[in-house]
């Protein structure tokens, strides 16, 4: 199958489904926006009929101002050499979605990762438990409302350097003028 053929092939499939938008963002990248109900069906079609067998990654973005999580499924076809990114949004409060593990085995890792980092629960995913953050009791850290720097300042201490040259400067009337924290935005 040549690339051009697949384009039309992909387009036919995409036309079959309602409630999605797609656009080619670069020669080998296609972006699809799809409602959360239609996404599993879309993936099934993409895998079953359009040779998108490789789930490259699932990314999650916390759009806190929209009160939504965006899930992005990056799929790659070894036959047509195209990358399709399927975007969908789920509400932030419920933070639940359906696992695609039965379609794509790699999903288990990414879903667990998102579960840990964003607190999105994937129904039907095999490992909805902690993996990286086993020793972490706080909120899902990748959420935008978790202020890591404030947590760090509260939890940890810093070195209180006071070398001789600084003492000398202080005697002369100098000393620390601007601490690094003061210039951070």
């Amino acid at each position, binding site marked *: 199958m040549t690339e051009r053929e697949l384009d039309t092939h992909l387009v036919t499939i995409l036309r079959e489904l309602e409630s999605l938008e797609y656009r080619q963002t670069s020669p*080998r*990248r296609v972006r699809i926006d799809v409602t959360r109900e239609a996404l599993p069906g879309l993936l099934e079609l993409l895998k079953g009929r359009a040779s998108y*067998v*490789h*789930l*490259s*990654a699932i*990314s*999650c*973005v*916390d759009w806190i101002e929209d009160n939504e999580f965006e899930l*992005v499924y*990056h799929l790659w076809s*070894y036959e047509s*050499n195209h*990358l399709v*990114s399927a975007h969908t949004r789920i509400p932030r409060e419920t933070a639940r979605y359906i696992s695609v593990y039965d379609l*794509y*085995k*790699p999903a*288990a*890792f*990414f879903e667990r*990762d998102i579960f840990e*980092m964003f607190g999105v629960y994937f129904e039907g995913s095999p490992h909805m438990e902690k*993996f*990286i*953050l*086993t*020793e972490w009791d706080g909120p899902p*850290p*990748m959420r935008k409302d*978790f202020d*890591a*720097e404030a947590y760090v300042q509260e939890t940890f201490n810093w070195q209180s350097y006071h070398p001789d040259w600084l003492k000398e400067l202080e005697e002369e009337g100098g000393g620390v003028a601007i601490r690094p924290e003061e210039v951070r935005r």
Partner: protein
Amino acid sequence: MRPENYQAQSHPPSNEYELFIGPNHPGIEGNYAFKLKLHGDVVLAGKADGGYLHRGFEKLMEGRLWIQNIALVPRICVPDPVPMEVTYSMAVEDLCGLEVPERAQWLRVLQLELSRIAAHLFTFGGHAATTGMYTTSYWGIADRDLILDLFEALTGGRVYHIFNIPGGTRRDVPPGFLEQVSQTLDYLESRLPDYDNLLFTNQVFITRAKDVGAMTQEQALEWGVTGPNLRATGLAFDVRRDDPYLVYEQLEFDVPTEAAGDAWARAMVRRAELKQSFRILRQVIERLPSIGGPVRAPIPNPLAWNVPAGETYARVESSKGELAYYAVSNGGDKPYRVHVRGPSSMHAVQVLEWLAEGARLEDVAQIMFSLDACPPEVDR
């Protein structure tokens, strides 16, 4: 009771027991753990335990300026840091619509391939050491060090180069550098027969590595295996060739494959890739002097750089497999979200768990090293 005096608890008789490998263990690549359930020497089930190297990279990146992250990203995979820098830079360039000067692209290819050689030499050493062949690791790491010398001359740092920034590279090659690369390549090529003698044609090594951790091409595709591990199952896929970036389209190289899909095949694919990298580097050395122009596109002052809102998925072929960055900008001076898809996030966790099942205890470490799993990519 005195804690050291573990008394073996009296349990109902059973042949099954559990064994931890890691996190501090020579059979584990890096700070990573693997739990095994064993029956005799046979692994009934394996369970990866990560997070020892977790730093919250993606969170850290959201708190730093776009350009500051350049110093951060190579730390995501220490043995093979260049692809990290390049991919991140590519993502930012894509978001900004920055055109990278051609010379910088060639320089990036130069670094990428040097880094690949270094990583593969390191992996040979690691893989051999899991089978008790320590001489190879001593050689491999010493030879890798020559590449690090090249990096030091080029970038000013041995391991963390921090040399690629969005827009290009930070410097041009120093005088006489290409000759130095050429000499090192000559030397490494002359060393290959030694490696062949010592390792690749070593009967004991072949006995150990063949049929260990074997997977079929179907399994590999289903499990999301990429890179040399996928090529070792017979599928000739390489991001460099099939989703080309930089100037790989102008370069000639083969995509070596093996059919067996076992640890041996993976080692052989890496060995063949080493030669392809030599070949690519020779072409770069030949072409680079004829390519003029700057090495960096003009970029705004790092303190005043807002990247236009958008999202991008940049990916390259690292020495371990498919490496990708999903970067989202909301138009601010810091990334809104960066998701790093390290190749090892598959290999070190699920693939390793599946391959370990039914394997023998002796081979677990070898499977992990032959997959070239890099735990920091998993933990991030």
